[in-house]
């Protein structure tokens, strides 16, 4: 079975997507992946094979809302918006992430 290449730490994709939507507002999948890649100076690359399943799951969880709409280039695209539940989720995941990096940092410094 081929190993699925995952450049983004497991479990952080949702956080990144939520943060992106919070920052950019309404966006489609392609824009989300572009945004993450750009902001991270190409350090983080979101694979399509992970992004769409994740978006789909987030929609099922009620964190994002999706609708079909036209892009500037007149293409049909599916646009995602953060819901209030998504905002709460974002705050929670951000908190978790900060705790985690803080803890890892301590270990690396003092252990």
């Amino acid at each position, binding site marked *: 079975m081929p190993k699925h290449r995952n450049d983004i730490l497991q479990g952080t994709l949702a956080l990144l997507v939520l943060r992106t939507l919070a920052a950019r507002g309404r966006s489609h999948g392609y824009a989300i992946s572009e945004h993450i890649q750009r902001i991270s100076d190409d350090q983080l690359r979101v694979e*399509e*094979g992970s992004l769409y399943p994740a978006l*789909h799951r987030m929609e099922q969880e009620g964190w994002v809302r999706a609708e079909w709409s036209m892009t500037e280039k007149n293409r049909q695209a599916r646009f995602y918006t953060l819901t209030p539940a998504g905002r709460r989720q974002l705050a929670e995941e951000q908190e978790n992430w900060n705790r985690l990096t803080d803890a890892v940092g301590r270990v690396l410094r003092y252990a």
Partner: protein
Amino acid sequence: MGWLNRVVNVFRPARLSRDLDRELSFHLAETIDRLIESGMSPEAAAREAARKFGHRPLVTERTRDMDVAIWLESVLADLRYALRALRASPGFTLAALLSLGLGIGANTAIYSLVDTVIFKSLPVARPDQLVKLAMGDTRNDVFTNPLWEAIRGQGGIFDGLFAFGSDRFDLAPSGQARMAEADLVSGRFFSTLGVRPALGRLLLESDDRRGCASLAVVSYGFWQSEYGGRQDVVGHRLSLNQRPFTIIGVTAPEFIGVEVGRLPQVYVPLCSEPVIHGAPGMLDARSAWWLQLIGRLPEGTTVVQATARLAAVAPGIFAATLPGNWGEAGRRDYLKNTLAAYPAATGFSDVRQRYQTALAVLMGVVAVVLLIACANVANLLLARAAAREREIAMRLAIGASRGRVVRQVLTESILLSTLGAGLGLLFARWSSGLLVGMIGNAETPVSLNLSLDWRVLGFTLLVAVSTGILFGVAPAWRSITVRPHGALKSGGASTTSTRASLAGGRILVVTQVALALALVATAGLLLGTFRTLTTIDPGFRPDGVLLAQLDFGSLDLPQPERQVVGRELLEQLRSTPGVLAASGAVLTPVSGRHWNGFVEVAGYQPTGETDNLVWFNGVTDGYFSTLGTAVLAGRDFTDADDARAPRVAIVNRALARKFFGGANPVGRRFQMRGGDDHATPVEVVGLVADAMYRSLRDTLAPTVYVPWTQAEHFGALTYEVRSQGSTSDAVNGILRAAKAVLPNASFEIRSLSGQLAASLARERLLATLSGFFAGLALLLALIGLYGTMAYNVTRRRKEIGIRVALGATRLRLLRLVTGQAGRLVLAGLVLGGAATVAATRLVQSFLFGRTPLDPFTLIMATTLVAAVALVAGAIPAIRAVRQDPQAVLREE
């Protein structure tokens, strides 16, 4: 709104999948645009975008799997696919379904019996609060009425307490008896259990007073069958043991009494016992043990607390009810008794006591049968999986995830086992009635409600799913170890995984042979036991002997007159045409009733407290000649041996051997002492051959026969009538003779051979069912072995063809091919031998005349299994070497 989305999505999987497709197309298009902007040609951009995107169907599938609806949809697809696959190979499906149906059905049927007899609580209010009372030990749970009255007098321990005695009443006013199961119950019986009347009212505390009116409550079933559910049944007269009783009510339909397996049809108050049995009755008898006690614990009281309170009052209760006529040792023991409470949510059950272990054995047997069936299905599935290797490899190669493939294979197994379970339920429904019939008999019918409830259905479902997983694991495991590359390249007859599947198949065959051997050996022992018991010489000739029991209790005859009437009826019977011989006895062999007492022989030193406890019976003259028991020395009883004559006895050979050193005991004297009796000196006037007394399994025990007229007390006399001609003529002859002497009496008539057969009901059940299931197991193992061998031989067709072409003799080839089967069977037999040692030990307590490792049985079982296995293995082998090598080689 997540859940709502999911629910909505269930109904529009197509739209969802279209959406996803559009979304991914958009993404691709944007990527291509960006690449063109950065200077690529449109073609190169399209290629690069597709490469970057990865495996599109995989992305689709993974996204879709995020969705419950899609998951459901794929399950449906799996189901459709599995159904199609099963339909495509009807032979395989039929074989698998039949083995599973029989296996699961047998398990369900036996389990429903086990559940009803052993586990299920009584269908009354809060059964968990019910406790039964016993004297120290849980088995010691029968009380006398004086004890019950003393315990009842101790208030405050229970939230309701009652006593009941099981009995059988005669419904017929005269002639041939018609017995009904009945309970004599104390006043708070129904209120403590929380039973409601379906009609009229139930018995109350005020109905249970000494000298009470003759009132009766009947069961719902009795009301329906005897009175057709007539509304005006309350107030009707009912004849019980020839006494009139008035029906006051009917119990609710769901009430089945407190004894599982015994459904009382009539309930009368305890105080009517002297009416039922004739004065003086047992109400004041301090040595008549016939009542069982059940109490309801008050809310918050534990069994331990109740036991402590009972133990505190016990000494006073036993002191107040001490039987006056007991000996010193007996009184001491009596006063040592204590009282305790035991949980009684499942009520009492004679059937449970008799059948608990037997049912456990049967449960084990059917579980093994199911295992063998599972092994068969696993084997069939494995062979199929080998054939489908290419298909699975192809699916993996085009991007199906392995989880998806495993799920699909497991779906097929679980579909099979579920269909098998459906078939099994039908089989169980049909067979459970048969099972209950095998436990009961005409004399003591067993009433068990084996309707399919949620417990049984739950059990079946559990069995179905676990068997599905059990036999699905091997093929599923196989499917994920498929290497698409190798499987596709090698063109089907592939390498590693096929070898693995063959190894799996071999392990399954060895297991099947081993399990089948253990079952066959166990069944052989049980069948042998039953055969021995049915062919054993009981010491009398039961064929052609009818037993007619006369209950004196209902006749209002004082003891001396009973003897006159009894004698008169005996003479009448002897002069009836067709009657060859007739006699009377207090007890008949293997009737379930016994009478024991002590003998004291000068010069014999008892080795223990019960060493000189022997069986007793009271008989008329002609008893031995009627039954066909040889009188070896001395004389039979005569009319002169009556109550005024000197006490005499006839003893059997076992007694003579034990107490008189084997010498002829005629003319010797000994003392006999019963429970309440003082020692009575008697003279031995005769010696008879040994005969079975209590059970066919008993060793021939020392027995004393006394003239029935000298027996201290008897409530019933059973006539033994040996006649020629048909049974119905004989019955009519007996009834005519009885009517001439006692027009108002009723007789319970049965055959002596029937009584013997009834005493072997448990042995028959075990022997029949274990024999049947062992045969089934053998058949399944045969199919399994045949299948594996046939598959193997087919695989080696080419090789065999080449060998034949190169000049190998057929015999040599046969040895080559069967050698493998032989090794498998041998391994199975060795393993089975070990399993047999373990299995047969479990049935040890049921065996008679055989040790668990009876060499004859083991050799026969091994030979049988080996023979069947070799036949199964040899048929495909012979077919293989008979084939024309040219034809095989030309196939390429």
